[in-house]
């Protein structure tokens, strides 16, 4: 087996991440719209939870302050993840992937790098909105010491989210239109990832299943650290996201190779 040129690939992937950063920054109107949408979503959810939350706590979480802090983080991550599946679908369906195959870095690694670059820009630009929600709303403010972990987990959780959507995009080798696979993945992320409420509110059996799934690694685990910034939860969160990044990366690589073989054998 030939040794892989890791360092050039890493440099190339970082270069693609810069593409993502530059391309995202060039669409200022879209970024502004996304920031305003985030504030709108949080305004609605704040109103919802302050209205319906008659209890002061549930499942160990203070209401509505804890829930709002949690949702502020999950929405921050979810709205920061670009639609990599659309780019994969377009490139595979219309043959643009061929041009990318002629570059000396792996296509999928480059696309994920580019998407992570775009995600970092969005996370940064939505963070003022996150600050506004946490400081001025009804939500609780996480302790300062937890913030480094929260930010790192948001980036890693967003990466898990990207890999999950990339799986939907790679289905384009076989089904051409990825919208169905994407919608299934999106709903699984929202539901089993605990977008609107922590999975701790679910029935025990579902909560256990969700916590062990990759969907929770994208949203639940980064956000729960806001409510439970103790060391064991932080360690568990990092372990969960790292494990799923590795597992999903291997799965994406395997599906990509199967699709690539089909492409190289049969052409576009």
């Amino acid at each position, binding site marked *: 087996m030939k040794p892989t040129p890791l360092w050039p690939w890493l*440099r190339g992937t970082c270069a693609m991440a810069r593409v993502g950063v530059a391309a995202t920054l060039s*669409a200022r109107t879209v970024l502004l719209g996304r920031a305003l949408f985030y504030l709108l979503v949080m305004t609605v959810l704040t109103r919802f939870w302050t209205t319906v939350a008659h209890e002061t706590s549930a499942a160990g979480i203070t209401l509505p302050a804890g829930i709002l802090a949690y949702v502020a983080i999950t929405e921050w991550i979810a709205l920061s993840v670009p639609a990599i599946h659309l780019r994969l679908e377009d490139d595979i369906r219309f043959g*643009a992937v061929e*041009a990318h195959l002629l570059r000396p870095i792996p296509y999928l690694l480059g696309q994920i790098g580019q998407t992570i670059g775009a995600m970092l820009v969005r996370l940064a630009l939505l963070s003022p909105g996150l600050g506004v929600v946490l400081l001025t709303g009804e939500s609780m403010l996480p302790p300062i010491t937890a913030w480094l972990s929260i930010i790192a987990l948001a980036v890693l959780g967003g990466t898990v989210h990207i890999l999950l959507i990339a799986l939907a995009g790679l289905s384009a080798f076989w089904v051409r239109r990825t919208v169905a696979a994407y919608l299934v993945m999106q709903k699984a992320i929202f539901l089993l990832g605990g977008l609107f409420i922590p999975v701790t509110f679910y029935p025990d059996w579902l909560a256990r299943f969700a916590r062990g799934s990759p969907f929770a690694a994208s949203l639940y685990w980064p956000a729960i650290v806001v409510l439970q910034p103790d060391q064991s939860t932080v360690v568990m969160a990092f372990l969960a996201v790292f494990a799923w990044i590795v597992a999903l990366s291997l799965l994406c690589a395997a599906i990509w190779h199967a699709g690539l073989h089909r*492409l190289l054998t049969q052409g576009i």
Partner: protein
Amino acid sequence: MSAITVRDLRKQFRYAKSGRGLRNLIAPQYTNIDALGGISFTIAPGERVALIGPNGAGKSTTLKILTGILLPSGGNATVLGLTPWQDRMALARRIGVVFGQRPQLWSELPVRQSFALLRRIYAQDAAPFATRLDALSERFDLAPLMAQPVNRLSLGQRMRCEVVASLLHKPDVLFLDEPTIGLDITAKTTIRDLINAQAQSDGLTVVLTSHDTRDIELVCERVIVVNAGRIVVDQATETLRRRFLARKLVTLRSAAPAITLDLPGVSARPAEPHIAMLDVDTRIARIDSVVAAALSLGGIEDITIEDPPMEEVIHEIYAAASAR
């Protein structure tokens, strides 16, 4: 050592036949299409070769196999000593590829930024890269375009940028798939001149596919004609013209509104008043005899003698290949 070696290259595509019913869904029937039926050729370093043929002949299939983005069904090929489909990424560092119909630059980014990213992707050192970029930018007149997003450029401007992008990492071989498609005459001429000049200064090996015979005439010194997956002709451009067409085109301009020249081996093409265009079969009629006969009519103001357009040469080759 040759730059490109192809030995008995074959490619067969397999498609599921469309059909109705559950039976077709469970056990679809397949049909095989032979895109390449065993082609062989060698290209020396620095050679500029046109790979031409009618639609579906196998040109793009050959190009894709040589660049490593398609697996052959049989035979072998090497480009710069590497097997393209096995060493695709290593080969990518040493070849440049331009697809006329598929953009490779990032459409939303300014041209300069796209080039800067290519430097990192190809792991080029900053100083020599900057020098090369300046030289190419000057030759291809890209200075006014550098700050513009690629998606704001005209097609001709974009193609100039695409060609420069393919040359920035100093490739040894340049593959061009229909590089002038969709361009106006001025833009085509510009691209051809620039490719020629760059190929000569860098000693580039060039492989070009095109339906435009002027691309072949003005850029390439050798032509490989592919038809139905097989090579029908592989010759120098000039030899091809002389071998396949024992004809000359004689254009006469006269004071008289019409010229009639009735000679064996000479036929008149439709032309405007005061202009006569004569097709001369040089196997039957000698050119000096035809010119002498025209001059004897009197009133001839201008005579032009030229080879027939390459388009007619190619047309004749296709016709001969189809008749076999």
